[in-house]
């Protein structure tokens, strides 16, 4: 079993994940909400993700912001995976349609969460999907894992959310992720709904699962260029997006 802390740090791009975990643990972030400008979430896809009034935004708790940033991190990952798969063009038929539809959903979730978080939003990490966007079979098994994990992540956080408005929005995303999960499972010939009750995971458990994929690239270290040696693993990612 890998050391969970080391694994998280190794892939913690620009401290995005660490920031999220620390905020959960109660890091001081007083005053940032005033600057964040959390007003009524901009419309996207015809629906408003988070209908905050300015007063409600001022009252947003640190922990809700941390939860939203956790959700945003997962949505960044999903959106980037599906977008890269679109660009790869390795899919056809209903799998390509699934990809196109779900990519649009996840990009919309990213926009909605970023809009709701304002300047409190974590930055988008850089990803390396390690070839999983290049074949139908790798794409399918990865998509199943991402969507099932998304369901478990939102389920795990829902009872921790303080604001009812944020809870509504999280619920509205949760059920869409569950639809995605059932859809790709059925395409793959697996049980769309394997059990009567879905199981939640903690933030830590989800982040550990994400870290195991190694999809999130480590933060760039500032280094002097001397001969241009690449300290990376040797696999060059297809996109730096």
């Amino acid at each position, binding site marked *: 079993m890998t050391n969970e802390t080391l694994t998280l740090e190794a892939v913690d791009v620009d401290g995005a994940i660490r920031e999220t975990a620390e905020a959960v643990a109660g890091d001081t972030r007083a005053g940032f909400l005033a600057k964040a400008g959390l007003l009524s979430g901009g419309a996207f896809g015809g629906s408003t993700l988070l209908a905050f009034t300015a007063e409600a935004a001022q009252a947003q708790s640190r922990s809700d912001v941390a939860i939203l940033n956790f959700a945003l991190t997962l949505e960044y990952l999903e959106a980037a995976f599906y977008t890269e798969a679109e660009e790869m063009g390795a899919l056809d038929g209903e799998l390509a349609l699934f990809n196109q539809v779900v990519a649009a959903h996840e990009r919309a979730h990213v926009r909605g969460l970023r809009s709701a978080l304002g300047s409190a939003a974590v930055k988008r990490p850089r990803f390396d999907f390690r070839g999983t966007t290049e074949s139908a079979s790798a794409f399918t098994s990865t998509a199943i894992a991402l969507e099932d994990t998304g369901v478990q992540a939102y389920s795990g956080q829902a*009872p921790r959310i303080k604001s009812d408005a944020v809870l*509504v929005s999280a619920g*509205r995303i949760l*059920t869409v992720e*569950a639809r*995605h999960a*059932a*859809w790709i499972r059925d395409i793959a010939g697996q049980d769309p709904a394997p059990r*009567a*009750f879905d199981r939640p995971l903690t933030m830590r458990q989800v982040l550990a699962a994400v870290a195991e994929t190694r999809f999130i690239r480590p933060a760039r270290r500032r280094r002097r260029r001397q001969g241009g040696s690449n300290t990376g693993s040797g696999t060059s990612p297809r996109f730096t997006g």
Partner: protein
Amino acid sequence: MSDVISVELLDSRTAVSEALDESRASTRADFFRKAIVGGGAFAAGGVLIAGLPSIALGQKSASQDQEILNFALLLEYLESEFYVEAVDRGALSGETLEFARVVRDHELAHVEFLRSALGNNARSKPQFDFKGTTSDAGMFRATSVVLEDTGVQAYLGQAPRLRRQTLPAAVSIVSVEARHASWIRRIVGKPDYDGRAANYPAPAVLDSPLTRSQVESRVQSTGFIQG
């Protein structure tokens, strides 16, 4: 034919108990029953009021949680009876039949969980008349889409009204209802869904909550509940 029906019933009982074991529903239901009924605070079968009743809309309370879970139980009774009858009527085959069996077992597990959590305060099951929708595969599929989508929207509408301690129950169910909805939409519409997003397993960026009265209107318009 009666042999086949007996085997079906046996399978469903086994599957339900497996589902319950797997989810440890009885343990979780115990936890929720204590949260809702409040341990020794209420006499068996007695009125669920501890102190002043909550008058304000949106005021969270044990009694409101009970009200909401009984509403959920009504919908789960409706769904489970629908699927039990559809499997028994024998008009289904292939993946539609597989869907009906699996979802029946899930909805029965949801009923058992909610009944266990509500204890003596669980509402009784009403009589249903499914108006022939369980005897025709096409009508079954169309009705299933409506029932599952409505279930998702009903849970989304009620979830924020629950006390947070009761919420995990609703959350663990709503995502499964969404999987059901997606699955039957796929059975109906694959592989190209007539080119219409409204037909997709995941038709929208966000699912939309419905209020209780909106859900009740929808259910009433089916005429399925006899009283």
